[in-house]
């Protein structure tokens, strides 16, 4: 145990993942399931090789990614000014927040079909679904971040006759950044879900969502698993990117 605790993260992650694969393979062997019910890891790896070589995996992944990234950026981009407005203006908060909260009671999967009716572009309809999913948690974190700024620091800035922009740039933004980045991490993983939901309601011949649906219809359960792992990998990669940005931007936290 102490040996395990001393290992770097990549060793422990590889070990636990290896263990998971082992258990999975054992379940398949002992239960003797048909491949279309529960394929073993080896089947999945084989299928992974097939779709990798014939280029399908990359093509569909890139299409999904091309929806995920604008979804994340636009979602965060809208939350930022809106969050600032809501945090700063009690009136705006009273007017807008009931709708925002009510909107969260409606599952995106229920609105998504409407969006595909209203928006003729497949691409933009899917991006919009991702935006809707990303938007709220990022917004909440931006508001929480801005609210975390101590009143006395505002007073200090005012006593120095700081401009609104200086207060934002030198106080509010850096003070809110840790919480905003935490929201962005959440948003990064949610954007993948959002894009996938968008693809489910509009499964034209492209995207990982399309690949997933066709694989399921054809009982290619091993391909379903390949897609699931790819989605998870995509979410992890985006999460990692935000973490990387976090490490750079919040270097001061390392010194505590």
């Amino acid at each position, binding site marked *: 145990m102490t040996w395990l605790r001393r290992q770097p993260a990549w060793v422990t992650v590889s070990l636990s993942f290896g263990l998971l694969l082992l258990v999975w393979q054992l379940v398949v062997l002992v239960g003797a399931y048909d491949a279309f019910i529960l394929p073993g890891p080896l089947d999945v790896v084989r299928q992974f090789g097939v779709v990798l070589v014939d280029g399908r995996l990359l093509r569909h992944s890139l299409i999904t990614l091309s929806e995920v990234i604008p979804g994340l950026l636009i979602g965060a981009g809208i939350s930022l000014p809106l969050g600032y407005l809501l945090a700063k203006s009690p009136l705006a908060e009273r007017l807008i927040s009931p709708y925002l909260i009510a909107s969260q009671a409606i599952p995106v999967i229920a609105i998504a079909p409407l969006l595909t009716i209203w928006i003729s572009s497949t691409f933009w309809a899917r991006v919009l679904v991702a935006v809707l999913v990303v938007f709220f948690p990022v917004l909440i974190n931006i508001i929480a971040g801005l609210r975390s700024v*101590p009143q*006395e*620091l505002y*007073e*200090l*800035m*005012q*006593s*120095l*006759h*700081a401009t609104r922009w*200086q207060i934002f740039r*030198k*106080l509010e933004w*850096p*003070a809110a*950044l840790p919480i905003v980045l935490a929201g962005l991490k959440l948003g990064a993983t949610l954007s993948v879900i959002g894009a996938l939901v968008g693809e489910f309601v509009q499964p034209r011949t492209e995207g990982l969502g399309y690949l997933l649906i066709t694989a399921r219809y054809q009982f290619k359960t091993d391909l379903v698993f390949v897609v699931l792992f790819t989605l998870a990998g995509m979410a992890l990669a985006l999460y990692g990117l935000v973490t990387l940005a976090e490490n750079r931007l*919040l270097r*001061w*936290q390392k*010194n*505590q």
Partner: protein
Amino acid sequence: MNQEPFLTAQNVSHLFGEQQKVLANLSFGLPAGGFTALVGPSGVGKSTLVRLLAGLLRPSSGQIQYANNQPPSIGLMFQKDNLMPWRTAYENVRLPLEIQGVAEGVADTAVRQMLDLVGLNDFAQSYPAQLSGGMAQRVALARALVHRPSLLLLDEPFGALDALTRERMGQELLRIWAALPVTVFMVTHSIQEAVLLADEVMVMGGQPATIVARIQIALPRPRRIEMIGSKQFQECAGAVRLAIEEKVIG
């Protein structure tokens, strides 16, 4: 010391909302270059007065006038250090100069001088989380003074420090005050601290609050911690205590 008033408050009253009257008809002057301390019970309105003097609040009625009719540049310091955790000590001290758009080279010199004055040159590159409470308050003091304000407002600045550090910081503050042409107004809970540091101690009490007593402290300068034992010190402290007991509590 120059006795010309640096700041004059005339019949200053303050209400929060329509109903809650916190300060009633305060009239007093702060001598230029002087050191005035304000004592009074919690919640009486001391911080409100500091905010009025800082120009962060407008008095509901009455006036605060300054020598040469110009609002002074202000240095502000609270009980909490309120340092920005993402800035080093150096960068924290530089903040007021950045806001005023002071050229980088000039700012650098001023920041280094200030850090020198509070004895923290070796910790310029430390982050607030790496500093002790006393060191963090010294950085906050350097930040409050780096832009050479003419009025330094201290709201219970050493209230969160242990007794020994607190005494040292008081002495430090006196040394810095002597080195700079700045008028000091300090809120404190400690009668002893008020008497040891200030030229005059104002006592605030009542609801709404007024200045119930102003006690001149004629102890010679430089003031040393040992003076606390002297008869003259005890008399001054006794007078402040009496004013509080008779007019605030009693």
